[in-house]
Every structure is written in structure tokens, then in C-alpha cells.
């Protein structure tokens, strides 16, 4: 049984916008599952729906939403609060806005643990120091007394990760954890997440818009577009034979050093992700797709491209990997 099971999840805002439309995915213990897509695809809303953190006015429904034996659909707010930061934690893109500027790093980290576990503040601070060392923060005792503004962006994100690990979670939901960071720091943070997965068996639901990151850290991938999972596969299969035109488009956008031809344009996807109203029919990507035709406006059924690899498009499976543009 998966650690996290999502079946047919839908989220609407005020009955006008369908942000998530029938998302199904499972995250196994110790697995890194990537949700990939552009801004506005519903990746973050999916994560927030799992964490029970949707804004008021959002409606969530699903046929199944289970985490480690808990039915999240029927769990009370207090029940959710007991899980969050405890067995499931979340880190966000912008560590500046997710840390409280008025409290020291130490007090924020200790609070996570004293709230969920029967431990003293000093024991919690001890754990904080241990975890800060684990995530590569030098001089952790000194950092405990510092305020978030005294730390660099990379350090803040490490503090966020250490804080998320305080109660030894089974699942970490990471929403674009490296987008605001330098590429050098990004590599360090992603290495850290990979080692946490290896050493603690941590399952990670990683949200990103960058297929370069997906290739390097994911075990399985769900590609989201306009609220739907349009393709899902094991990482190696997705990159060996990407099927959905959106996946192929995203892949062509990643600049690869040494393979760029300066006299030719970079691969890109024209236009932006549309806002989808409830009741929308057909393929949501058709307005930006080079292969679109009249049948794309009707219901599309999922096609299989091999074991554990399916996609939502009328086109027949292709074997070839994408040739770099």
C-alpha cells in the first residue's frame, strides 16, 4: 500500500476555476515522486489539498485521499494539525516568507517538536542542533540564536528542511524548494534531499517546473497540465520516451550546455497555461499544441506506453526519445 494515495482529486475555487481535475497518484515509502509542470498547472494546489492547507473558498473532493493509514478526507482540522509538521511536513519555495521574522531560528525549530511530541524545550533544541548539522549548517549552536534575516537564502532553506525533519516525518512535500536559490546552492540542497531519502527512508513529493531537476532526483514523475496529470511514468521511461506533446515541449525548453545552437531559437511552448472552468471538455493543451485537431475537443482517454507509463493524448505511442533541438 502506498504511503500517500491520491485518487481522483479535484479542487475548485468559488465554482469558477477548476484548479485540479481528477489527479491520481501514489507515493511509496522512501520514494521521490516529482510533480512537474508550469506555474498555474495545479501542482501547488494539489500539494496544499493533501496537506489540508487550501484557502477558504476552495472545494476539495476525491474518491480517496489516504496517508499512512489516515483517511484525510474525513480527518478533522485538529487531526490534520496533528499530522502536519509531524509525520508529514512541507517546505515552500520562498524561505523568506515561510519563516517568522520575529522569532529566532531556535525557537521556531523547537516549537515544531514541543507541539507534537512530549519533549522538553531543551531536548527539542538539542534535536535542532543535531539536524542543522545533518543538513550542512555550520556552527548550528550560533544559528539557534539568529533571526531569519541574518541568514543567506541557502541557509534559510536548510533551516526550513531541518525544521521539517524535527519530528522524523514519513513524507516531505517540497514545493519548488530550490527555485529561489543559486544553481550552486540548488545542487547542494538537492543532494541533501537525496541523502535524507537514502538514510531515513523519507518519501518526498517534489514539485518543480524544471525537468533537469526531475531527471536527477525523481523515481517517478507525474506531469501536470491545467489541473490534470497528462503523463506519468518511472523517471527513466519518461525521459527515454516522452509521449505527451506537453512533456516533449517542456523537455525542449531546458537549456543544455554545449548543445545550444546560437543561430536557432531555443525550444519553447507558446502561450500560457489557460484557466479552466468546471465542465471543460477535451484536451486542455490543445490551444498550445502543434498536433491539435478537431477530435482534441472531445474526451481523451488515457493511453498506455508500457508498464507504469500512461498519458492523456489522442496520439499513438512513440518510441523515440526527444532529439535535442
Amino acid at each position: 500500500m502506498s504511503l500517500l494515495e491520491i485518487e481522483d482529486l479535484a479542487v475548485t475555487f468559488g465554482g469558477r476555476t477548476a484548479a485540479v481535475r481528477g489527479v491520481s497518484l501514489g507515493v511509496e515509502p522512501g520514494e521521490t515522486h516529482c510533480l512537474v509542470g508550469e506555474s498555474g498547472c495545479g501542482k501547488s494546489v494539489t500539494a496544499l489539498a493533501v496537506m489540508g492547507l487550501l484557502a477558504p473558498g476552495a472545494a476539495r473532493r476525491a474518491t480517496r485521499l489516504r496517508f499512512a493509514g489516515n483517511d484525510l478526507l474525513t480527518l478533522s482540522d485538529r487531526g490534520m494539525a496533528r499530522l502536519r509538521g509531524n509525520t508529514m511536513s512541507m517546505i515552500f519555495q520562498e524561505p523568506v516568507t515561510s519563516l517568522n521574522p520575529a522569532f529566532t531560528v531556535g525557537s521556531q525549530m523547537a516549537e515544531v517538536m514541543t507541539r507534537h511530541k512530549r519533549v522538553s524545550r531543551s531536548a527539542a533544541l538539542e534535536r535542532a542542533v543535531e539536524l542543522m548539522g545533518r543538513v550542512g549548517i555550520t556552527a548550528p549552536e550560533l544559528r539557534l540564536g539568529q533571526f531569519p534575516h541574518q541568514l543567506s537564502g541557502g541557509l534559510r532553506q536548510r533551516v526550513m528542511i531541518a525544521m521539517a525533519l524535527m519530528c522524523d516525518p514519513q513524507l516531505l512535500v517540497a514545493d519548488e524548494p530550490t527555485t529561489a536559490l543559486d544553481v550552486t546552492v540548488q545542487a547542494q540542497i538537492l543532494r541533501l534531499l537525496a541523502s535524507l531519502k537514502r538514510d531515513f527512508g523519507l518519501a518526498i513529493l517534489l514539485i518543480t517546473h524544471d525537468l533537469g531537476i526531475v531527471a536527477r532526483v525523481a523515481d517517478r514523475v507525474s506531469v501536470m497540465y491545467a489541473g490534470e496529470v497528462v503523463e506519468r511514468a518511472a523517471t527513466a521511461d519518461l525521459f527515454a520516451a516522452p509521449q505527451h506533446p506537453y512533456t516533449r515541449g517542456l523537455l525542449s525548453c531546458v537549456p543544455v550546455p554545449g548543445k545550444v545552437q546560437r543561430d536557432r531559437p531555443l525550444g519553447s511552448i507558446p502561450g500560457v497555461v489557460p484557466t479552466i472552468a468546471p465542465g471543460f471538455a477535451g484536451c486542455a493543451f490543445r490551444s498550445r499544441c502543434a498536433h491539435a485537431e478537431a477530435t482534441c475537443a472531445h474526451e481523451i482517454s488515457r493511453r498506455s506506453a508500457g508498464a507504469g507509463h500512461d498519458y492523456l493524448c489522442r496520439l499513438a505511442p512513440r518510441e523515440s526519445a526527444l532529439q535535442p533541438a
Partner: protein
Amino acid sequence: MNAAIEVAKLRREFVLRAGLFEARRRVIAVDDVSFTVPVGSVLGIVGESGCGKSTLARLILGLLAPTAGSATVAGKRLSDLDRKARARLIQPVFQDPFASLNPRRRIRDIVALPLVAQGTFARADVARRVARVLERVGLSSEMAERMPAELSGGQRQRVAIARALVLEPRIVICDEPTSALDVSVQAQILNLLGDLRRDLNLTYIFISHNLAVVEHLASEVAVMYLGRIVERRETDALFREPRHPYTQALLASVLTPEPGRGVPDVGLGDALPDPANIPAGCRFHPRCRIAVAQCRSVPPTPVVADGGGMVECHLA
């Protein structure tokens, strides 16, 4: 060679006080930087946060005065020009299109502002120029009536580019113009900047923390570390054979979509650079994999590399 930008021994210091009772510290943000950018070419400047690349951009734009050295643009010292003349010559595009557009103005008015500020354009002329530049960057006339909040990140960055180009400047300084955008939108913006440069014979300085992003546009790439340019080479040569260990680490940090390769250890360690506390000898040595005794005591001098470039390393 016709130089659009000439920077000679440029230096800028800041005096910082971390707290009320702490000693003043001197930060050298840009340290003895020299280069020339020919008309119609693109210089990519790459480095991590705090390396001085944005300070360098502000010096070239004339928004900051240098402590020493000079920056000349199209043969003129920026300090000799008034603001209006400077605006006709050189324009910036900044990283965050959410912060750089006035949220209370319509797109049409945001793009028109540089023309209106000149005070010499008739109203009909302003409207015509705004419509033309919006079309050129791929925004419909219907967009012109909207407010920034109604636009996506990519559309906002197109507005920022339109505003930079409406006075028909010859030089555009792009400071991380795609860092806040999705990769798919980043590609659109990079392609647009490339087309505009070709069609209008513009000169760019293009700043990024990601080497992969500058490759497509830049004719030459300068790598900055703690205020100094440590390597400057013709783009193809730099990507084919990076010579400075820092350039090599930056290149290794680029995550290409190749599954199974994992995330590389770029070998930079945790000793993050502090511009207020620049190490003796080679300033990169605490993070350098191949540093030897000489690197800890003797600052390297730039050596000429292929094709007129330079590299500043004892071991390169």
C-alpha cells in the same frame, strides 16, 4: 572594433554597519573590472548571489558612481550625461517583473512613461510608439489596457522589455531577466531578446547566476567571483573548455535532463563567499578543489587566454 561599452579598472566599495554597535566594514563589491563590449554583441556575466554582478550593472547604468575607474557607454562617460540623455542610450530590464512594474498603472502608461518623461514627444507619437513596441514584444493591443496584476510572469517581463525599448536605446542591461520565470517562459523570453538584438542591432549585457541560460545569447561570457572577473572567454570556448575551477563548478551545477546521473557534488563546499571578508591570495581558494600553497598567499594575475579572453588562476 566599435565599442558600445568600455569598462576600465572599475571599482566600487560600500561601507556597511551590521549593527548599531558593530564596527564599520568595507565591502569591495566590484574590484578592478575591465572589459569592452563591441556594438551588436552580448556579454554574459555569471556568478552567485553577492559576487557583485548587479552592482556592476548599476555602475554601467549610471545608477551608482564608481569609487575608482570608469565606465563609458557609446564613447560617453555616463556622469557627463543628464538622465534623459542616458535613458535614450541605455536601459535596464530587471529580474522581478512583479516588483518592477507599477501595480496601479495600465500597461499602456507603464510603457509610455520613458517617452513622456523625455517631454519632447507629442501625444499621438507616444501612442504610436507604444503600440509599435508592444506589438514587437508579442503583446496584443488588448493587453495594453490591462493592469500588471492581470498578466502572467512572462507577459510582465515582455512589458518590462517593451518599456526598455520604447526610447530605442542602443544598449540594454538585462539583470537576471528570466530567473523568476518558468523554464518554458524563460525560453520564450530568451528567444525574444535574441530576435530583438538581431533586428535592432542592440548590445546587451546579460546577467545570470546560471551559466546554461547565457549560452544561447552571449557572444562572450565573464564569470565573476567576489567582485572580480575570474574568467572571460568567447562563449563556445568557455563551454567547450572552462579553465577556471570556479567556472567548471558553475558548469557542473547545471542540471541537464539526463536521468540516472544524480545530482553532482560540484565541490564548492559550505564555505560561502562573504564579500566583507575576502580571503587572502586567490579569493576562490577556500572553495577550490585544486588549490595549492601559492593560492593561499599570492593573488593570481590575469593571463591571456585564447581569442583575447582571460583567466585569473595560478593553475589554469
